[in-house]
């Protein structure tokens, strides 16, 4: 274990110039799920696969692709699962609409109950 630490220490001292991460890349990292972790984004993960995805996204950004193009590429390659926010399609109608349906039902129920008592 101490050996590993020593190697790390050495590496940090050898490194040069501080490189800042592109804020746009950070925003994208927060939208992409880490494939091998438990519900984390690649932003929160240090796993090898997450680092690979980050590299891929950085490259795509430098190639001038838009956020949308990058996301579409990822979905095509890994499926809807890769995005942290579920897409809006036939599979997720219930997910997006049910909350509003419930509010609506409640509003009618409470109003009718009050009316009948008034």
């Amino acid at each position: 274990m101490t050996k590993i630490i020593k190697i790390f220490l050495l590496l940090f001292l050898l490194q040069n110039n501080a490189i800042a991460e592109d804020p746009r890349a950070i925003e994208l990292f927060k939208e992409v799920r880490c494939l091998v972790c438990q519900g984390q984004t690649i932003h929160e993960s240090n796993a090898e696969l997450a680092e690979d995805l980050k590299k891929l996204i950085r490259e795509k950004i430098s190639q001038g692709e838009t956020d949308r193009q990058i996301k579409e590429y990822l979905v095509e390659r890994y499926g809807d699962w890769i995005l942290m926010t579920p897409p809006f399609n036939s599979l997720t109608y219930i997910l997006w609409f049910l909350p509003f349906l419930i509010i609506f039902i409640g509003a009618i129920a409470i109003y009718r109950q009050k009316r009948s008592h008034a």
Partner: protein
Amino acid sequence: MSLYIFYISNFLLLLCLTASLMQSSKIINNKIFTRPGVMVLASVQLISILLSFLILIYLFLISDFNFDLVYFNSHSEKPLIYKFSGVWGNHEGSMLLWILILVLFNFLFALSKRISERFKDITVAVQSIMIFGFVAFLFFLSNPFALNQNNFFDGIGLNPILQDPLLAIHPPVLYIGYVGFSLVFSLAIAGLITKEVDQQWASIVKPWVFSAWAFLTAGIALGSFWAYYELGWGGYWFWDPVENASLMPWIAATALIHCVLILQKRNVMQSWTIILAILTFSLSLVGTFLVRSGILNSVHTFASDPGRGLFILLFIFFILVFSFSLFAYNSEKINKTSSMGLISRGTGIQVNNWLLITILTIVFLGTMYPLATDLLLNKSLTVGPRYYSTTIAPIIILFLFFMFISPRLGWTDTKLYKIIIQLRYLIITSLTITLIISLYFELFNLTEILIIFFSLLLIISSMTASINFNKQNILVRTNLGQNLAHAGFGILMMAVVCNAVYSEERIYNAKVGDNLQLQKYVFSFDKIEQVEKSNYNSLKAYFLMKKDGKLIDTFTPEIRFYSNPPTITSEASILHKFFSDIYLVMNVPQDQQSISVRMHIKPFMTILWLGTLMIIIGGIISASIRLGRFDEK
């Protein structure tokens, strides 16, 4: 020696089983077990479990690796506090802690006076059925006192991420919350059986439900605070399935405490209160045990034995079927006809009850929907934070509005325009502050502006309501708890929104000597050194924070290398200021030969915790004041 302990502790568990069985039989009006009385049996239940819990603590403290549980979850070189907290840092031990709190509540309730004997008997009996179920589960399926045949020299150790002082108290506090609702559930069942769910019932329930709620709030807050500084991602809430599992009973319980209040004051909404009591406890069970079953994978998963998961599912199923059939059979008899005006305080509370149920549904959907599509359609989905924030934010606006207006309305029909005229100064003040905030920070998102506006209304309105300036001397009113909690909630919501909008983050790959920029601050990477501790080694970096060339503070984030079991963790270094936190954390990416430094400015974090603290204190005040009031009767 170990063998004696093994026999004694298992005997204690069996003793509790017997006492609970005798206690349970009091649910039917029988003559078999009239002696020994409720109090004697409750004491036996408490003492037997308390002793076995103390034995387990002793085993962890002396590191007796003849016991499987100690072997798998402890290590002789661990600091004493983590040997101690390791007792509940695992499935079996946390089950025993859960049962200990269960019998403790049972005992405390048995102590309470001025409750009709029949009602007390039934409540304690229902509680004892649960004690019986869980002790049986512990004894047969997850016995903490199982011996192993090998002579292990040392243990495997506790997950380093759990080796944290805050996490040592997080489970007990959370459990007191969860288990507190077991008593509320027992009281609801007793109310259904005796068909007496009335104002008297509400005043018996109130102190219990409020204290359980306050503890649950504190437990969730502790977990959230731990995630904030320990996980090193700069966030405090991740909408992770496990967090959601604790949030769901909290939402149901929040609805419940308000219903108990209306029931006590107006004797209405009996059925709904009972439904919420059952729902809250069922969700608490889901919260503790589904988390443990391994269906939702996370740090919290201790056991993934299918037998255990099945038992819990069957138990929850049994409770739901039993209580809802009892409810279906008796609900007609407990309901009184209600009459409340359309624009009244009651309606406001009802509306917010429904909004809470909607939020509960959203959290439930978000947690369960991906599981369902995965199992039924074989299609994987991820439901992340953005789903929750987009769906919940508009509901929060309505919720804040009703929280603000309801306490101002009377119990009978009130004219809305009169209230608005009465509150004109308050509304104008809030509007002005909101305008200043949104112009100053260039904030033009309508949802965010509205949340800030209604939060401000709620905060000012609650704070002015608890203090009465009209009298000669300033008078603190009895609903101080309510006003404090409501103002706290407003502060919390405002902090959440501001934090989400103004957080800033920079990530650098850096080496010693670099200067890193974050807003107006410069961080000089001064040095990095190796630190050796008893249970880990670490890399400690020193960053000097400067503003206009002047040194303000030193940050020391760490990367820790634990050996038992081998794990690498990042320790954040945080500077707490009143208006914003500055947060530094470093990581070792596996394929990069550099140190990755993350710097966050997290505005309003201190205010966010302050709001949460106000909610908890408000809950405690409400619990204790009601207790006093009931005793007066």
